[in-house]
């Protein structure tokens, strides 16, 4: 009985068990079925989707930057090229123990405290980046040492990046300009696709103007990467096409010589071939070494403060009153408008006065020049004569004549951000100063003072037109560029050739020749070498206005920043010019003492050494 109850209980329990077992198995099998459906969905139906995801996961598109074009001077000497800069960097996303890596690297190549501090600073500042530079500009020995410990650390690597090298440093810094990190401002105007993965872009000078030529065409690589982002192998690649090289019109020997003459001064000097507009040398001082700019990523602000705006390119952006260098053009204008002629003489006393005013416009020569004609007043730079000419012409005629020599507009040189200067005019003064034009303003325009600002480039351009007797050559730096004269330039050229007589041109040329070669010429003492037949014109620009009754103070009593700017334009040989030079030196004194000797040395150096060398 007991056994049967037990048996029935057992049978009952077994029945319940089997029942429950089947229920559970059914539920579990149902789940297995659902999993299979899900797997079918993932692997068969959504295969394309996940396949794409998997491919994009593992394949990275890397754009390779092209090699930047090299810049040469006219004799194929390298002015800017590329070398590799090796730097040790740490991938902060991949590195497991950054402190340990730095300790190990320090043991190998001795990092400075500052380098380590900089790294941690940058790590915080550029947390969005993967790679942070620990030490840049490694020597070959340092590269080898780091490579020897690289295997120990994930994330430590040595990378090579483009380094632009400017072998002539300060000497070419303003002409060539430099490249720099692409910043937000650059991003606004550039083709982002083309510059993907590129760090640098031309910022100033030739580097900027010919950016498209120098940059080249980027290539690409499809690289397989692992989950940590490490590149494993190239799947497909197209090499980058290097940028075109550029040959400049600059003669580096002349440039070097020009720099040696100007260094120590603040100013600019430009030498140009008037026959074809080729810029032979172009200096702006002070300058800083562009190589340092790159390596330190930014310029030392203290050094900039110490120097007088070393980044400012005075050659194309420095604005100076032309001073007496404008006198040959005023004389041409006067002859053209027939207010003066070569035969008339005029009494030039110590000052000029307008009939309506008591104001005295003084001559630089306290006792005056006495009886003068056009030639004499150019040779001796007689102010009173040109006050008279300007007054007779009036500002409209004067101003529109200045336009023929590019004043007030850009010359069209192949450099970025050229300044146009200021042409003296009623409209300009009223708009910018807020006062009405006075006759006095006209008078001082006659000696290149007042509301009249030009760049050294405009001066050399104007001088080349005088030297060429009306033929215009547009200044250029790229030897292969062929600047086109637009219709306006062609119209001007036609005017200068047809409406200004050859006699007038010859008169001016002769006068300028005598400035340098006649004993009482203002630039006679500026050079002993007279065999190159230099013609020129000095200019001394007052930085502050001397009160009309005040006698001129001795140079030594005037503080430096109020001293006169020294200017000079010159060309040679006078009868068949091959070189034109314009020089501006800030706050030193008269044109005949500084700018003239420097310019004439440049002219002689070119004609005696440089030109002869390549003939």
């Amino acid at each position, binding site marked *: 009985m007991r056994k049967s109850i037990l048996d029935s209980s057992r049978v009952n329990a077994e029945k319940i*068990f089997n029942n429950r077992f089947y229920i559970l198995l059914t539920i579990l099998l149902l789940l297995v079925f659902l*999993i*299979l459906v899900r797997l079918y969905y993932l692997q068969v139906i959504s295969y394309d989707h*996940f*396949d794409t995801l998997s491919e994009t996961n*593992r394949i990275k598109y890397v754009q390779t930057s092209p090699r930047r074009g090299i810049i040469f001077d006219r004799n194929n000497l390298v002015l800017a090229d590329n070398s590799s800069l090796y730097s040790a960097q740490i991938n902060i996303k991949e590195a497991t123990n950054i402190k340990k890596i730095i300790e190990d690297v320090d043991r190998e190549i001795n990092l400075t405290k500052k380098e380590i501090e900089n790294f941690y600073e940058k790590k915080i500042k550029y947390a969005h980046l993967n790679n942070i530079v620990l030490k840049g500009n490694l020597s070959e020995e340092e590269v080898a040492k780091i490579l020897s410990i690289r295997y120990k650390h994930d994330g430590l690597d040595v990378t090579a990046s483009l380094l632009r090298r400017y072998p002539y440093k300060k000497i070419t810094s303003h002409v060539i300009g430099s490249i720099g990190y692409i910043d937000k401002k650059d991003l606004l105007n550039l083709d982002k696709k083309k510059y993907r993965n590129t760090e640098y872009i031309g910022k100033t000078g030739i580097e900027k103007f010919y950016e498209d030529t120098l940059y080249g065409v980027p290539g690409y690589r499809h690289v397989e*990467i692992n989950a940590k982002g490490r590149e494993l192998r190239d799947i497909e690649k197209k090499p980058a096409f290097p940028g075109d090289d550029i040959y400049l019109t600059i003669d580096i020997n002349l440039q070097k010589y020009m720099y040696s003459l100007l260094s120590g001064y603040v100013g600019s000097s430009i030498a140009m071939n008037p026959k074809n507009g080729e810029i032979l040398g172009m200096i702006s001082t002070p300058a800083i070494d562009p190589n340092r700019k790159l390596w330190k990523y930014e310029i030392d602000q203290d050094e900039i403060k110490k120097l007088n705006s070393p980044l400012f390119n005075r050659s194309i952006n420095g604005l100076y009153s032309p001073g007496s260098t404008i006198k040959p053009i005023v004389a041409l204008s006067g002859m053209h408008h027939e207010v003066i002629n070569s035969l008339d003489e005029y009494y030039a006393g110590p000052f000029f006065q307008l009939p309506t005013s008591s104001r005295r416009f003084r001559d630089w020569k306290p006792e005056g020049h006495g009886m003068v004609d056009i030639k004499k007043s150019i040779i001796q730079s007689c102010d009173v004569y040109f006050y008279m000419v300007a007054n007779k012409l009036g500002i409209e005629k004067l101003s529109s004549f200045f336009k023929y020599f590019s004043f007030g507009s850009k010359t069209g040189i192949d450099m970025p951000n050229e300044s146009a200067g200021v042409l003296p005019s009623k409209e300009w003064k009223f708009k910018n100063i807020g006062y009405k034009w006075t006759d006095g303003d006209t008078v001082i325009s006659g000696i290149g003072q007042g509301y009249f600002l030009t760049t050294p480039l405009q001066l050399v351009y104007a001088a080349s037109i005088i030297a060429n007797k009306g033929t215009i050559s547009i200044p250029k730096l790229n030897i292969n560029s062929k600047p086109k004269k637009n219709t306006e330039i062609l119209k001007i050229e036609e005017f200068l050739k047809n409406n200004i007589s050859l006699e007038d041109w010859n008169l001016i040329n002769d006068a300028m020749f005598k400035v340098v070669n006649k004993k009482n010429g203002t630039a006679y003492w500026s050079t002993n070498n007279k065999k190159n037949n230099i013609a020129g014109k000095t200019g001394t620009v007052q930085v502050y206005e001397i009160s009309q009754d005040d006698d001129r103070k001795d140079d030594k009593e005037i503080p430096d920043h109020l001293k006169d700017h020294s200017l000079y334009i010159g060309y040679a040989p006078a009868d068949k010019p091959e070189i034109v030079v314009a020089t501006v030196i800030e706050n030193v004194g008269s044109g005949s003492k500084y700018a003239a000797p420097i310019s004439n040395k440049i002219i002689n150096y070119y004609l005696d050494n440089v030109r002869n060398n390549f003939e």
Partner: protein
Amino acid sequence: MNRDNLIGLTDLLLFIFIVILSLVGLAILYSATNQNLDIVLRQSFRLLFCFVLMLSICFIDTNKLKIFTPYIYIASILLLLFTLFWGHDSKGATRWIILFGFSFQVSEILKIILPMTLAWYLSISDDKEIDIKKLFFSLIIIFLPIVFILKQPDLGTSLIVLICGMITLFLSGLKTKHISFIVISFLTIAPLLWKFLLLPYQKQRILTLIDPGSDPLGSGYHIIQSKIAVGSGGFFGKGFLNGTQSQLEFLPERGTDFIFAVFAEEFGFFGVIILFLFYSIIIFRFILITLRAKSYFAKTLSGSITSIFILLIITNISMAIGVLPVVGVTLPLLSLGGSSLLSIFFAFGIMFSIARRS
């Protein structure tokens, strides 16, 4: 029938498929570890050890096993306590102890020992009906180890162990009203558990399951990469050692939690079907052993083992295809790891032992 045979002729089939799946496991491990022969070799030694253990248990009489059960349970509770105090930390949790030079995760083996203990407890009295008193003690048996596992903390394993215990209770004929009571009380305290018991990372794991895109590089990364691996395998797979997701290390925890994703990527849907067939053969043999089991203890235990075996497979694969949160359940026979392997082969040993007695 065929009692004199080593493991019984009918279960030679079972034995062969265990061997086959173990070899498949070694092969896929070789791929998942980027052809690291060292790891594969170590896993092979573990497997050899486990086969020895399995065959030893196979010779133990089921009745003897039943007698040992309470002692095994107490020993494992003590080991859990030992783990809490002297275990070593890994990823913020204390789950491991060193036994005879091997690191060992005690909570793994409880997936088998807990059902075994319950089967023993419910079979000692003649009356097989589960009254309130039996239910009470059963729940104590279940929750005692779970509290310690929760303390480690290891919520995933706690839940799995709990479910393993519940499966045994369910198979043993837990009354419907008790089942409803347990389900209702669980549903009531679940929100409280969410609020007070779950750690932020555990909540995150569950939340990312709902929307893995919310944190694609953090907790969602595992799920996204695993789904990409499985999906990009397609119908025939990328081929052995050619899975880019695994070879290029996009897939995390490739050897353990996500070994299935490695398999699915390299062998595709077709390979998965074959894998399921292999597992099905083992499960089919298990079901037969369960149905033929003579004693109540043997029946309950083998039924539980069968169900748990299926459950572990489902859980692991669900993790890999993004339908369950990452709870750290390994794929039986394929995943790397000593403790889970040991518990699975312990279960196999028991199944062979039961098979020999039927």
